[in-house]
């Protein structure tokens, strides 16, 4: 184990009186892909938002390359090389696809590199090239998701925080996106923190996984180990899919509770 690129210690975040993450610690090493699994409302998005400065933590530290960065303004955190591809697209609806991508490279000054990356994004998502002049708000849901991911790539980040990148994408595109992520990780050594509902594909891609429940990390381990866990199988991979109708009401007790 090398030095952690990103380390989170005992982080707590609130929405007003509601405590959304309750003392989360985790480590991300350089070049790793870490996935965070968890049911709806577990606090996964909150965790990513707190890392990227969109929310202020109440307690705890976020350490990036040895520096504490928690509570900084979000744009400072981007300047450190941390990119967050948010849940729910969040494109600039009245700007064109091209302008959205340009803004993705806002912090960069190397014109050549930006141009190359733009070509790369268009290469990954040809539909965006086709629609470069269209206002982003009129793209279809999936197209907006592609744009959001493409825009994140334009920043040429050191570490990417991806919040449900597969949301609303067609099965084909989901495969493609994950192939792209794998390639970025392999070729450009981009470190990633991935939050995904589609646990199977996430664990397949990731090296390490964490499981969150009601704001806490309840389980962690290598992706292989998690994949073997009965709980994971039952709740995140959907192995009991073929179960009886009545089984729905009877929820299997999770062993980590």
């Amino acid at each position, binding site marked *: 184990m090398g030095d952690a690129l990103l380390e989170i210690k005992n982080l707590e975040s609130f929405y007003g009186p509601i405590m959304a993450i309750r003392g989360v610690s985790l480590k991300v090493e350089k070049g790793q892909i870490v996935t965070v699994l968890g049911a709806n409302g577990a606090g996964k998005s909150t965790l990513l938002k707190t890392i990227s400065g969109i929310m202020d933590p109440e307690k705890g530290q976020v350490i990036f390359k040895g520096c504490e960065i928690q509570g900084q303004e979000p744009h400072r955190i981007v300047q450190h090389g941390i990119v967050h591809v948010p849940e729910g697209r969040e494109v600039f609806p009245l*700007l064109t696809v091209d302008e959205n991508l340009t803004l993705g490279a806002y912090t960069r000054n190397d014109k050549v590199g930006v141009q190359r990356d733009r070509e790369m994004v268009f290469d990954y998502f040809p539909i965006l090239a086709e629609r470069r002049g269209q206002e982003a708000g009129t793209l279809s849901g999936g197209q907006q998701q592609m744009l959001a991911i493409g825009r994140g790539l334009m920043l040429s980040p050191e570490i990417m925080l991806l919040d449900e990148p597969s949301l609303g994408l067609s099965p084909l595109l989901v495969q493609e996106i994950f192939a792209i992520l794998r390639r970025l990780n392999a070729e450009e050594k981009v470190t990633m923190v991935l939050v995904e509902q589609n646990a199977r594909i996430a664990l397949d891609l990731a090296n390490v996984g964490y499981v969150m429940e009601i704001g806490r990390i309840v389980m962690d381990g290598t992706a292989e180990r998690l994949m073997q866990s009965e709980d994971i199988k039952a709740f995140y991979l959907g192995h009991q899919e073929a179960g009886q109708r009545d089984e729905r009401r009877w929820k299997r007790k999770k062993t980590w509770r």
Partner: protein
Amino acid sequence: MEVLQLLVSGLANGCVYGLIALGFVLIYKATEAVNFAQGDFMMLGAFVTLGLTNAEHMDLPFWVAAPLAILVMAALGYLLDFFVLRRLFGQSQTAVVILTIALGFVIRFVAGVIWGHEPQTLESPLSIGDINIGGVVLGMADVAVIVVTVLLTLFLFQFFQRTKLGLAMQAASQNQMAAYYMGIPVKRVQGLIWGLSGATAAIAGILFASKGAIDPNAGLLGIKAFAAAVIGGFGSLPGALVGGLIVGVIEPFASRYFAAGYSQIAPYVLLLLVLVFRPNGLFSQVRVKKV
């Protein structure tokens, strides 16, 4: 001849509205807030210049005082954002609207305390001399207003359209969170735009004061400029200019040809008509949400 005279002075007049409207639009374009104190900013800009240049005050040469006043107002705009508006970051725009209305009260009060409530005249080289082209008379100030407004609109338009910062400002107004995700220092960008609009207000104030007298209530004009900005389609810079010109031109024609009692309502009736047929102004950027 008469018609031409009416038209030309209407255009000059409209440019003043356009200038103030530009200030409105700038803020809106970058923050989606409406600065109801824009008219008062203009008044303040005029008074700052007056304070710097008039003989009974600091008596600086006009061409030193004017840029200085523009700088002062830009700084004021930035500081206002820095110390006050930033605390409202992410809060509903109504809060900002109310804040700027209240700010207008304060600005008027401060101007009244410093410069008194009686109308005063700016000692400006622009207020002297007329140009007479074939019987159509235009004051120097009118000519200056037209030239400056057109140049400023072009400049700002280019700025928003062509520069990365301009684009970032638009982005920041559409989705603050996403703008942050892009690494755009949203608060600083908004501070810059408040500074820029302060500078615009100062320019408007100087030109306005060169055309006549000013007093602390001169900012009331802001409402008509607001109407102009809306006619143009709030958020569009050329729209602000066009809206200003429309309001400016309709006025002299209405007072020339309409009966007393009716003429002064023309700009507002026009505004309502425009809105009935184009609910989002002439050059709007309002869309139906795609679901």
